[in-house]
């Protein structure tokens, strides 16, 4: 049984692309056949986060327009068996693809892959409608900020209207030291407001920037806390009951010392 999952947020810059890359990569590491689909036509980035930008020949618009076969446009990630990327077009705009074409494309991908992860563009216009068109499930990414949570709420409403029910929430870039000081909304605050199920919490982690500098998803880094958080998130996505990891690492001297010796 294959499944198409759209990763969306409303607001830009909250971590949709990074999340798509990491969820997909870890699913592939676990042995699933995974297609990552970048639907951010005109502003593609999933290729860069995955480190596959130099291997693009054809893109999603070429496929829907029949300029190439689907298999020709899929870039195989040589690091992991079964991981493929369908890149967005960079020199076209959102209207180059219709929701009907997306539905057909996802249907075709389902014949080959276990999971199709659709990276949604920011906004609620045609790009969003394209991205959710063929999806069975939705993951909403937010950060603990008023603007991001507000946009997430709007997206929840729009998904409901599109009959994509029961979306799951990922809270990204949480800083536990700020939460402790009372200067950042906590997990419970956000769940309280949005009233949807939590899929995972990703700590704010410098290693994410380093990993995107290198084009290597953070789940490849065994020592990263954010990488571990993404792995746990994927386990929950697969229906396994994994508790939230303790993000409360602190930043005091002793905490850093413990971190250094990997005690915490």
């Amino acid at each position, binding site marked *: 049984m294959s499944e198409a999952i759209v990763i969306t947020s409303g607001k830009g810059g909250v971590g949709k692309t990074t999340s798509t890359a990491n969820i997909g990569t870890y699913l592939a590491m676990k042995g699933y056949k995974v297609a990552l689909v970048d639907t951010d036509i005109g502003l593609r980035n999933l290729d860069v986060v995955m480190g596959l930008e130099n291997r693009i020949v054809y893109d999603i618009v070429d496929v829907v327009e029949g300029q190439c076969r689907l298999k020709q446009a899929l870039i195989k990630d040589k690091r992991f068996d079964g991981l493929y990327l369908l890149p967005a077009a960079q020199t076209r705009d959102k209207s180059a693809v219709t929701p009907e074409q997306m539905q057909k494309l996802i249907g075709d991908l389902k014949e080959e892959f276990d999971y199709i992860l659709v990276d949604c563009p920011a906004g609620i216009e045609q790009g969003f409608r394209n991205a959710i068109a063929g999806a069975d499930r939705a993951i909403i990414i937010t950060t603990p*900020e*008023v603007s991001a*949570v*507000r946009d997430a*709420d*709007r997206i929840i*409403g729009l998904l409901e209207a599109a009959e994509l029910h029961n979306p799951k929430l990922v809270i990204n870039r949480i800083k536990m030291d700020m*939460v402790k*000081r*009372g*200067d*950042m*909304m*906590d997990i419970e*605050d956000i769940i*309280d*407001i949005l009233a949807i199920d939590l899929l995972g919490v990703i700590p704010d982690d410098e290693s994410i920037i380093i990993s995107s500098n290198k084009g290597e998803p953070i789940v490849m880094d065994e020592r990263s806390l954010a990488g571990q958080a993404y792995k746990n998130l994927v386990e929950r996505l697969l229906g396994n009951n994994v508790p939230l990891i303790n993000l409360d690492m602190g930043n005091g001297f002793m905490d850093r010392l413990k971190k250094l010796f990997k005690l915490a």
Partner: protein
Amino acid sequence: MDLFKSFGGKNNSKDIAKERLQLLLVHDRADVSPKFLEMIKEDILNVISNYVDIDEAGLNVEITKEKRSDNTYMPALHANIPIKKMKQVIR
């Protein structure tokens, strides 16, 4: 453990964020088109007119937010209907 929290009180920026969000979302979630309100207005008018004479020009229907006892906010349909006179026949 949360010794400091109790001193922090309501001045935490997180509490401000949460309260602002709650208010904002009540408004966002209740955001309806003028056409929708016009439809409600017309239907209310039709029903109430059976019982009372209404000053149609003064009729005002809007969606507002109301604070509930548990300190959360909820959208409320607020209708201000000026009555000219009651219809005696039915009363």
